[in-house]
């Protein structure tokens, strides 16, 4: 029995250490809330695409509201997430506009991370909001770079200051890479074919040129790994399914 206990501690330590988590100071019991809300909502910073272990580009901002939906100042908010995710600060009191902002560093493994921001109501009831972020590993990060250079100009309908989107100029609209409804139904082999040989390979538009002579096999794999990770709804590989315990 103690053996199992030890084992758990080992795993916990290992996960923490290997994920590069900086040891956080204990729970912010020193902070005394001066206000209590009824709900906590996400203001900004959700659904970001970051890199493993690294600080997200935008801070996560949450707001505490009371029953009427007005912002509450001085409410205690605590952030938590899967092992290895660190918050700076991990908790705090909401400011005069009812908001609290934290810099988030995701853990060391690529994937989707569900973060929680929690506050307590006057009745000592705990309410929370879930915020999802995506961490790109090495391979997905490479795919992201390639998307940015080659694909996003047509596949991303949004224009940025640095890049005007070509999406609206195309007669046949390309699928944005987050469009899970379509892309999740395509197998890796189909995606490889359409990237490598162009639209006509799958009887689709010739407006999609072939990249098989421009990108390497590794690069195409990276691009697919990236597309799979950012897909919305999430992609679940339909490979061999093994019995779960």
């Amino acid at each position: 029995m103690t053996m199992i206990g030890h084992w758990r501690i080992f795993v916990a330590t290992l996960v923490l250490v290997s994920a590069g988590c900086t040891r956080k100071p204990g729970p912010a019991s020193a902070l005394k809330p001066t206000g209590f809300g009824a709900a906590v909502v996400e203001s900004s910073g959700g659904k970001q695409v970051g890199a493993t272990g690294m600080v997200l580009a935008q801070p996560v901002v949450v707001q505490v509201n009371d029953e009427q939906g007005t912002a509450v100042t001085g409410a205690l908010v605590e952030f938590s997430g899967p092992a290895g995710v660190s918050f700076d600060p991990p908790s705090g009191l909401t400011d005069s506009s009812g908001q609290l902002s934290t810099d988030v560093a995701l853990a060391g493994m690529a994937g989707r991370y569900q973060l929680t921001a929690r506050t307590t109501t006057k009745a000592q009831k705990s309410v929370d909001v879930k915020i999802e972020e995506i961490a790109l590993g090495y391979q997905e990060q490479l795919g992201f770079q390639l998307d940015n250079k080659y694909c996003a100009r047509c596949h991303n309908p949004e224009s940025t200051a640095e890049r005007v989107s070509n999406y609206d100029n195309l007669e046949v609209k390309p699928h944005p890479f987050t469009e899970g409804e379509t892309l999740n139904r395509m197998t890796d082999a189909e995606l490889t074919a359409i990237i490598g040989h162009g639209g006509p390979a799958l009887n689709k538009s010739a407006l999609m040129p072939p990249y098989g002579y421009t990108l390497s096999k590794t690069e195409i794999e990276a691009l697919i790994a990236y597309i799979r990770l950012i897909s919305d709804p999430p992609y679940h590989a339909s490979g061999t399914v093994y019995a779960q315990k």
Partner: protein
Amino acid sequence: MKNGLSSLWQMLFGHPVRAFGVVSLLLLISLAIAPAKNHFSEWRHYQKQYLALIQTRGDAVTLQRHFHEHDDTQQIWLPQLGVVDRCTTCHVGSKEASLADANIPQPFRRHPVIPHTLDQFGCVMCHRGQGPATTVEEAHSSTLAWEQPILPARYVQSSCGQCHRAPLTGTPQLNLGRNLLGRYGCVHCHTVKLPDGNTIKPTDDPPSLKHIADKTTREWIYTWLKDPQSYAVTATMPNFKLSDPDARDVSAFLIASSTPLAGDTESDLKIQKAPDPTAGASLYGESFCSSCHAVQNAAGNVVGGDVGPELTRVGNKVKPEWLRAWLRNPRVYDSGTAMPHYRFTDPQVSLLTAFLGSKTDSDLLANVHLDAATPEQIAHGKLLVTEYGCASCHEINGIKKPDNFAPELTRIGSKPLAQIIFLPGMTHAIPDYIAAKIRQPRSFGAALKMPQFSLAPAQVDALTTALLALTDRAHDLPLALTVPSKPPSNYQPAGKAGKLMDDMACFTCHAINGRGGDLAPDLTWEGSSVQRPWLQAFLKNPGTLRPALIRRMPRFNLSDDDAKELTDYIMTVYQTPEFDRDSMPASGYPPAQVEQGKQLFYSKYACQSCHIIDTKADKGYIGPTLTQVGSRLNATWIYHWLKDPQAMRSGTIEPNRNMSDEDARALTAFLMTQKGSSKQEAKK
């Protein structure tokens, strides 16, 4: 008590036979200690756990077979790299492709896909930690005998930088960090010798202060010194946290030491009121100033390039007579500036001076009142300028540039912890130390000279990553095992054309033969690519080639002679050795071939998704507009470009279509018929 002990002794060793039995038993027990320790060792628990995990899986047999091939402590031994890693003893599944799923608990999950294999590089090359250790604590944490704990994941790209000296697509953070070391001028004070023998060069080009009094006022210098960000949010100048009297004295000294420079001010300044109040703004826009200079808009967003300084409050800074001279020819004041010599006419200079002069913030200098400086203040200012090492970055009259003003950072990634003073409560590890030092240098002591930089958290991480790559291992690796960076190029075009190119600062945006910026296309082979008449006309009056680009080539108001001189040079010198540009004609292709090319353009290759030929029907916005490509590009160039775009200009995003010779010839024939009309010329 004594009786008890002696009776126990009597009981155990009183009789020789009994004593022999007891001693044998003790010996047996002590012999069993080592096997018992082995049996109950940490790593065996992990291995048992692993076997329990895989036995219910569909691929259990394969996984078990892989496991039993070793079935003990495992080791990766790479003598050349100095790697002895036993990490895979517990991280048993790190090579198993089927254990990649997120619900496989650590330490059993497959290692994420990276370009290297564990067998070739081991683990500690990238992750640090103690490779030969076989307990969790010893392998991951720093111990008395081992200083390097596991590297936090946020800095892991630093490990790539130990061998890879050139930027890699997969390491954006490392690339950014290396870039920032130059851009924020860290290497003005800290020498960083790279393992290949080069030193990192600063790229921030801090201005000389020798003639600063011609350019700006003492009040502005004072405000700037107190807080550079209050003037420009994008300022890379750090905050030295000077007290009011210290800032007063430094500004006094800088003004007092400044000498006037002939020609850098225009006293006969008469700024005419522009007939059209928007004319200045229009000229600013037409000259594409925003390709290099940013301005903060009302919403607080900084819009524009980062080659030159931000201009949001430039009217508070520069004197109008200086600005006028600068706009007329910036090379008088600063011969090495990245700013081109625009050859503006006097009315244009007036317009721009008035426009830029109106970019002010009435609050910025409102509360700065400085009395005339006393000699004591100036002397004290000089002392401060010397103490803070201002001359490491800026040229200042009467102050010598100090050598190695700050500690060398050549091997900072392996600095022994004993040489570091940590702050209370800080993790005793190099990454934490470097990050804390960059974030708040003065927290390590108020008397420290290192100033406070204004950096985002991601920039601090990037800088830390770049510095962590400077390890002993990086310096001691055999050269054959490293991936070198391209040697820096000091290419300089010759003759009158070379002088013209310097004058117009072509290298700020264009690269030629390895030297120059990446804002605009590489011109190394431009002479093989374009047609002479087009180039000459373009240099006189650059039109829009790529409609989607925000940064454009400005008009430099070149004289006919200068444009011809440059054209001749480019057409003669910047030629590819790959082909003869006269091997295909500019016109006279058979109509059938042209028609075939047109078909290929619109159907098989669907070029219209990115390019425009017919301005009414085509909408492609990514590549250059091709309406007049037949008078712009050389036919042989088009042919070779179609065959392999990356070979003609590495890094171009046009995909290689693996085109047959026949298709490429037909497309070339079609494109060469697109000569453009005079009407279209006029429209752009």
